[in-house]
């Protein structure tokens, strides 16, 4: 049963054949390393982060998902002690992220959203600087080892500005890991990278977890969410779902209906208007339908196909992936908002 799920999981992310490297989902709840309780941040009157309560266990690869502006970066910056929470508390390894920020700084590494290393310094100079800043000994050995591990050997004396996006990101990670922290925060580490470099970065992250390092990563690539042991969805500053990818997919309530119709583009628009359908996505030429009751819908359509302009070619059932989960939550939220607006 368990193994089968895994294989399906594998199928649903055909771009990345990472089965062998995937960390196995934790069976028992690990000891919490990061704990957030009603954590909130307001900028003026807008709430960037709205009372998030959750915990992240030791050794987990926690994916923090959400659209742009959902509050992911603000949350990470609060956890890193870079900005002061307006309400609530958060702790890392029992230490308050704001009050004890100076004490926990040596415990974690942080890779921020945009490339933020010294571009006029070379690869090795950047590493040396951060090794010094983290008060490490044997700086030369450390730097040389990191250069090797990160495949940065050919660029060791190149200025950081000259590196391509992927190597810059690798260098950022190398700088954040130079002091071998037990926790690594990554804010959209793969944004804007090509698939090869994304692969390379995830490979590296898995390598890092081997030594027990906990990873807190934000992304809006849903296929990357599949690679996390635990995932949280944040929307408008609120945590709307949290669980392992498997739990979240199961939470959708079964498989999704996929229909094959021609022409597909027109069909998406038509079907979206059909009562009982919440969302329609086009995936590899098939229409994936999020409906309140897909089984009933299918039976209804088998008796009578209500769209004379669309040619019915067949159907199948598909296991939901993280993108479906994300859409469902986004959609649910969206509907809820509409209801609230209507009530008012």
């Amino acid at each position, binding site marked *: 049963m368990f193994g089968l799920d895994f294989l399906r999981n594998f199928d649903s992310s055909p771009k990345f054949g990472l089965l062998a490297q995937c960390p196995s989902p934790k069976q028992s709840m690990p000891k919490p390393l990061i704990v957030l309780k009603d954590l909130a941040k307001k900028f003026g009157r807008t709430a960037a982060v709205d009372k998030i309560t959750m915990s992240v266990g030791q050794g987990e690869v926690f994916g923090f998902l959400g659209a742009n502006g959902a509050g992911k970066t603000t949350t990470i*910056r609060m956890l*890193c*002690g*870079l*900005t*002061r929470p307006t309400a609530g508390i958060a702790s890392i390894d029992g230490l308050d992220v704001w009050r004890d920020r*100076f004490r926990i*700084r*040596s415990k*974690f*590494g*942080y890779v*921020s*959203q*945009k*490339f*933020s*290393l*010294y*571009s*006029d*310094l070379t690869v090795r*100079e950047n590493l040396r*600087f*951060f090794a*010094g*800043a*983290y*008060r490490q000994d044997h700086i030369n050995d450390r730097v040389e080892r990191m250069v090797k591990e990160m495949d940065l050997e050919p660029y060791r004396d190149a200025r950081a500005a000259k590196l391509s996006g992927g190597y810059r990101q690798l260098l950022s990670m190398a*700088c954040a890991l130079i002091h071998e922290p037990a926790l690594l925060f990554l804010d959209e580490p793969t944004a804007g990278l090509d698939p090869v470099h994304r692969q390379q970065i995830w490979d590296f992250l898995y390598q890092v977890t081997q030594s027990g390092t906990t990873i807190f990563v934000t992304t809006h690539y849903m296929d990357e969410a599949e690679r996390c042991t635990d995932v949280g969805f944040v929307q408008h500053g609120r945590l709307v779902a949290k669980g392992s990818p498997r739990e979240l997919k199961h939470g959708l309530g079964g498989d999704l209906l996929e229909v094959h119709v021609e022409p597909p583009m027109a069909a998406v628009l038509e079907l979206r208007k059909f009562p009982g359908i919440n969302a329609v996505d086009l995936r590899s030429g098939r229409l994936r339908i999020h409906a309140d009751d897909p089984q009933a819908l299918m039976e209804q359509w088998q008796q009578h196909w209500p769209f004379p302009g669309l040619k019915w070619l067949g159907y199948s059932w598909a296991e939901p992936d993280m993108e479906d989960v994300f859409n469902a939550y986004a959609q649910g939220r969206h509907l809820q908002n509409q209801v609230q607006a209507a009530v008012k």
Partner: protein
Amino acid sequence: MNLLDSLKAILTIAYKEFVHVWRDRRVLLLILVLPPFFTLVFGHAFEGAAVRDVSTMFINADGSSESQKFTDLLHTKDVLGALVEGSDNPDKVRKDINDLLQNLRDTFAWKPWVGDPKGPIDLVRNGADAAIVIPPGWGKSLQEGKPIAMRAVLDGSDTNTAPSVQQLLQQALFVFQLNERYELIKNLPAEVVDLGEQLSPETQHEFSSSLTPWEFDTEILYNPKLLFVDYVVPGMVGLILQLVTVTLIASTITREREVGTLSQLLVTPLRQSEIVIGKVVPYLFISMFLIVGTIAIGHLHFGIKIYQPLLLSVVCFLFLLCSLGLGLLISAFSKTQTQAIQFSVFLLLPIILLSGAFAPLSQLPGSIRIFSELFPLTHFCRAFRSVNMYQADFGFIAADLFALAAGAMITGIGAAYLLRTADD
């Protein structure tokens, strides 16, 4: 050891900052070329405070021999023979006369002019800075014992030139009058001289005293040659260094804020104080190098004498520290580099005008001088001049040194405090 760790951390940042400057060729060029260049240009610009080549319209509307003689004097012909002859100390008089003639030669650039000597005279439309008119009947009026005044028209918009020309004209006229007096005495008929000798010796002496010019033996202290350059070079050096330090360091923190490296810096265990000190150190070295360079130019090129180099070094050091602190405070306070530069410019403007770099502070009203005391340049200029021109000792400038040190502390602590979060 904790202190050793801190020292290592400071050196780590200092090295990085130094590399930033070293690799930014444009900034490097700016630092290395502009201060010495400005020192040379400003120095020469303010070197001669003396008024030279004043374009002066001249008309001698009188036809008399007296007017011709005075005209000749103004045109630097030596017509003062009687004065030398009649003097007890002809060498000194000779020298004074030569100085006067030289001064006249330097000051005036004559411009031929024809017009109504009594009518209004327009300087600007004639392209002149001054006009001198010997009115008709001047020579005659002298002979009749009712001397009429000559006419001088000066341009008051230049507050330096008009008084200086006026003074020179008075001096020339005074010497001319003295010369005439001697000539008169020399040509007195014998019976008048005989008559004079019948006077009591006291009266004779008083009479001869009244004929001799009474003068001050003026002793000018501190800047005996009255060279403006001696006064202005410390101000200039200070101003250039103030400019360079503030603008250089003002972009260091804001650049990191803009690029995002500040967040990266603040998640490391580096203390705020270590970041501040680490950032100041390389700029302190660079600016010390610059201040030594510019003062060396002042010394070698403009002949500024340097007294008490040790005390001056303390003044320079504290001034640079305070200026860098100020720049760093601006840097920590600004959101973007553009803002930091704007802040610096708006701050530097009053500093230039109110710090006494180019004009004595005592010329400013008291209420404004309170502001002046807030600027590091004010204290630098005062302390530097006190030491270098007045040969003051440490005690004399202690207040200024204390102000600079306090400024460095306050701005440094302020900058460190502002670094407690990366909040934008």
